[in-house]
């Protein structure tokens, strides 16, 4: 943080602003996109592994992907897309200063995230009961690693959304100030984006 205490002007009362609100919002937006860039590359390494081994063992990938539950995967895709919608609607609500509506949409989002993890749990149990583990072969290693890492991101997203929901309840956000809601929303949409690619690659084309 450079530039601290260069100004002693008024306006530091509300959110300990170090800069004007528009600049602060832009800085936060660039910050989250930078973080998301590192996330793209975190998953990118695993996607690269997927591509290499898929080219190397096409038969294994074909046979193994048929063992995944395509219907549950599709249902989970719809669940996650729905949770992206509720976040977007929540942000639209707080932009109009409607805190109650924001809290409703955030609660719905967390509920949908929980449903996603619940379905994932059912799928994992199903795989384990059929003797399919991360160590079974390279396809299942990638399947469990990719969906597991994504699942951790869902959990982190639930924690972030829960924090925003809590703070919204304490009246932290308004029509004029809701940057943390938008930033958390961007993270959540990213979690959705990753799944948009994971689902077809693992369940549909193998």
């Amino acid at each position, binding site marked *: 943080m450079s530039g601290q205490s260069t100004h002693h002007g008024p306006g530091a009362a509300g959110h300990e602003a170090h800069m004007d609100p528009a600049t602060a919002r832009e800085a936060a937006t660039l910050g989250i996109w930078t973080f998301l860039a590192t996330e793209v590359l975190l998953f990118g390494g695993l996607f690269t592994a997927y591509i290499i081994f898929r080219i190397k063992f096409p038969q294994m990938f074909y046979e193994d992907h048929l063992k995944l539950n395509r219907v549950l995967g599709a249902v989970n895709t719809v669940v996650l897309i729905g949770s992206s919608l509720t976040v977007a609607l929540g942000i639209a609500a707080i932009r109009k200063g409607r805190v109650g509506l924001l809290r409703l949409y955030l609660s719905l989002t967390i509920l949908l995230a929980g449903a996603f993890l619940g379905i994932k749990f059912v799928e994992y149990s199903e795989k384990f009961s059929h003797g399919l583990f991360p160590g079974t072969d390279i396809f299942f290693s990638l399947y469990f690693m990719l969906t597991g890492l994504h699942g951790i991101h869902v959990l982190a997203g639930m924690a972030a959304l829960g924090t925003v929901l809590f703070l919204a309840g304490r009246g932290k956000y308004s029509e004029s100030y809701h940057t943390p809601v938008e930033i958390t929303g961007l993270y959540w949409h990213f979690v959705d984006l990753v799944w*948009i690619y994971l689902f077809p690659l693992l369940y549909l084309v193998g």
Partner: protein
Amino acid sequence: MKEHKSGNVTYIAVWAALVVLTAVTVAVSYVHLGMMNVVVALLVASVKASLVALFFMHLRYESRLVWGFALTPIFFLILIIAGTLSDTLFR
């Protein structure tokens, strides 16, 4: 700060498009098209990802600077994949 005009109607339309595209990609996966299955799956996924980024993530209304930050990792992703394949494919 740019003004955000995305109304709830837009969001719901985008959501509906995403659900329809999910149904399409699942339906296509039951048809045997060989390599075309992969192409269609990735194409549909990319359309869905673009919809999420443009509308839900408000990229449509963001500055060029934010676009730069959002698109740069895609360049590096391509670099990682192409660079690794240029090795593993030709051993």
